[in-house]
């Protein structure tokens, strides 16, 4: 088809209507803005390419060109997503893009020609409906932006220096720290949709405690000196990334996520956890532990236990006493691509299942392991007390 510029823009706006509405619905359901932001990025990429590239370089666009142009638009959209820091999960975002692309193809090749006799010969123009789109589209964008602005949680910035805790975050908000911002005495989160970013937390019983909250993001936080857990989440769904947790004391734990089996999965990624009895542990929760560095623990480096379901991938566990990675108590675990090094036998415990095991599947747990690197861990990989290990 040979599009006119107006035809390209009108067809683009019309084709994005369905994905845009779908994005609004999805956003409402999952209580996240990324679907709408992604739809906006797709539309922005498409309109920019229409104006700058397609109109000038494609006087005629054969049907098959939809595929390479779709790939190009995907790349540009991903660029916009990265540039604007849109927090869209990759796989759902890709599916959303593919679905939107398919909808656009069906509309352009079937629905628009069905609805408008002269669609093809008018170069993709949609007549009065198309003109209406030019009016409606900015209004829709304004409504969405206005809604976004009105519903965005407030942002609180902590200045550099010591701030007395515990800070209680009991409503949706963003707590951002400037370089050098330290909370002494812990942070307690009891509300959904909370972001804590770039903050150091010292002391407290729990460094950061999350209780009954969903969609919580801890980004680039540093926790130290807590007397029990560095980060402690109960009945919550939390994403923790790029954190540092340093634990001292005999009965402390780095990160503990528990009792959230019926809630969306929690994720801990790219964190460095040092010391404590357990480095990262889950109890009865869906978890995804990936690309973390865990060291110097005295009980287990990473543990997925008490009927949890968890993925433990691409982590680096070293210098742990007794057990490196543990899957226990009816849990189901995927343990893949981890480096597990220098797991020392806990001879003092008298427990043979703590004799320097890199991976232990215990008490009716089911572990599937794949491509893990094990070094200097005399206990190797074991299953015990009704548990199984499937090597893939």
């Amino acid at each position: 088809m040979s599009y006119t510029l107006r035809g390209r823009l009108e067809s683009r706006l019309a084709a994005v209507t369905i994905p845009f509405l779908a994005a609004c619905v999805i956003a409402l359901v999952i209580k996240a803005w990324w679907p709408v932001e992604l739809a906006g990025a797709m539309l922005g990429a498409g309109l920019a390419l229409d104006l700058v590239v397609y109109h000038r370089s494609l006087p005629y666009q054969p049907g098959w060109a939809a595929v390479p142009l779709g790939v190009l638009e995907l790349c540009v959209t991903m660029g916009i997503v990265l540039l604007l820091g849109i927090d869209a999960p990759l796989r759902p975002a890709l599916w959303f893009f593919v679905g939107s692309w398919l909808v656009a193809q069906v509309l352009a090749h079937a629905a628009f020609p069905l609805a408008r006799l002269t669609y093809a010969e008018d170069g993709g123009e949609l007549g009065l409906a198309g003109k209406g789109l030019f009016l409606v589209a900015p209004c829709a964008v304004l409504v969405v932006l206005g809604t976004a602005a009105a519903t965005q949680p407030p942002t609180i910035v902590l200045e550099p220096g010591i701030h007395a805790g515990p800070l209680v975050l009991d409503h949706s908000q963003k707590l951002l720290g400037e370089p050098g911002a330290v909370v002494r005495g812990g942070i307690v989160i009891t509300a959904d949709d909370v972001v804590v970013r770039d903050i150091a937390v010292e002391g407290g019983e729990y460094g950061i405690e999350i209780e009954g909250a969903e969609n919580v993001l801890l980004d680039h936080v540093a926790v130290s000196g807590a007397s029990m857990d560095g980060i402690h989440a109960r009945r919550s769904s939390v994403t923790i990334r790029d954190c540092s947790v340093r634990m001292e004391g005999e009965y402390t734990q780095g990160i503990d996520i528990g009792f959230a089996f019926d809630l969306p999965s929690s994720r801990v990624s790219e964190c460095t956890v040092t010391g404590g009895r357990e480095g990262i542990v889950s109890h009865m929760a869906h978890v995804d532990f990936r690309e973390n560095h865990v060291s110097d623990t005295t009980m287990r480096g990473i543990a997925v236990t008490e009927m949890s379901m968890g993925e433990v991938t691409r982590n680096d566990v070293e210098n742990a006493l007794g057990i490196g990675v543990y899957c226990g108590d009816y849990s189901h675990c995927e343990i893949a691509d981890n480096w597990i090094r220098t797991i020392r036998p806990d001879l003092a415990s008298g427990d043979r299942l703590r004799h320097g095991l890199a991976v232990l599947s215990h008490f009716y747990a089911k572990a599937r392991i794949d491509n893990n690197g094990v070094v200097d861990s005399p206990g190797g990989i074991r299953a015990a007390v009704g548990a199984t290990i499937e090597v893939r």
Partner: protein
Amino acid sequence: MDRSCAIVGGGLASFVVYVTLRHGGIEPGEIAVFDTDPDPVSAWRPRAEAIRQRRMRSESDGHCYPRSFPGLAPREALRRRSPAPLVQTVCNRYRPTVPEFLQHVEELRDGSGWDESFSRRRVGRVKAAERGFEIDDAGSFRHVLLAPGHPGLSVPDELGADPRTVHAYEPHHYEDRVAVVGAGMAAATEWLNALAAGAEVVSVRRREPSRRPLNVPRPLFSKAGLAAFQASENEDRVALLARLGEPSYPPGREWDEPLEQARREGRFRVAESVDGEAQVICATGFRRGFAHDPLLRGLVAEHGLATEGRWIVLARDGTIPALTDDVRTIALAGAPAQWTYPAADTLVGMKYIARRFLRRVKACRTP
């Protein structure tokens, strides 16, 4: 006023217009179609048979349905339960066979009411009247579409009286040595036909044919390319139409390989003139221009219509400006409408005119 619309001519262009009017809600009783043969492919079919045409040159939109979608490709895909026609169509490679196209026309004709609207009559005169047009003594009509078809086969003067001469669009067999005059789609088809029949072929041509998939470049099929064409000066438009009328046929191995093989075997060569060949096939198309058509010639003479070269000057919607106003319409379809739409003699071009004619009819229907 008798009926709302009259269509003069009963060929494919008229049929496409008729089907489009019906799609737009115009009842068979509101439309009169005038021609001598009720079969809309009665002129086209023998020509296709004469050149042994197997597939349509047109692509996915080469059908008579009023809507672009679904065309023949999706229907064939459903019928064959194969995605191949759809894949071919997105690659501009879908060309339905001639029998499929003829069947499609037949089916559409049966369900359209065409025969109900058809009147067997050769129209000799169309005359502007108050709020409409009088067509011979058949009555007056508010909206008239003239699709008289091609005004006869074109044969070079020097070959007209030669007993060896046959036009490509007339039934013929192949002698052992055949000269094919012309270099367009029909000529290329005849080269392959004659070679396949075992003949030695001499291609007589004045210029090298261009190789393009369709009659005209693709942008000229839609608004993006048409805007510049329709805004051009009359002389420029005449020149462009002349260039577009030069011979062409599609690129592709299916054409090149048999010709190259025959060339190597000494069975195919190019010459500037006919020599001592036993048969001369004139693949030289049709006579061109309104002056060759008595109905159009009379219309121009009687109403003093503006012309340019061999064309009647038309508006962007295919209507004749001097005779079209708020209450009446007269438009051309098929080859004479190339002034408006360079590919007006294709099915897509016929639909272009038809949709605009429908728009005018609906804007001003007979009460």
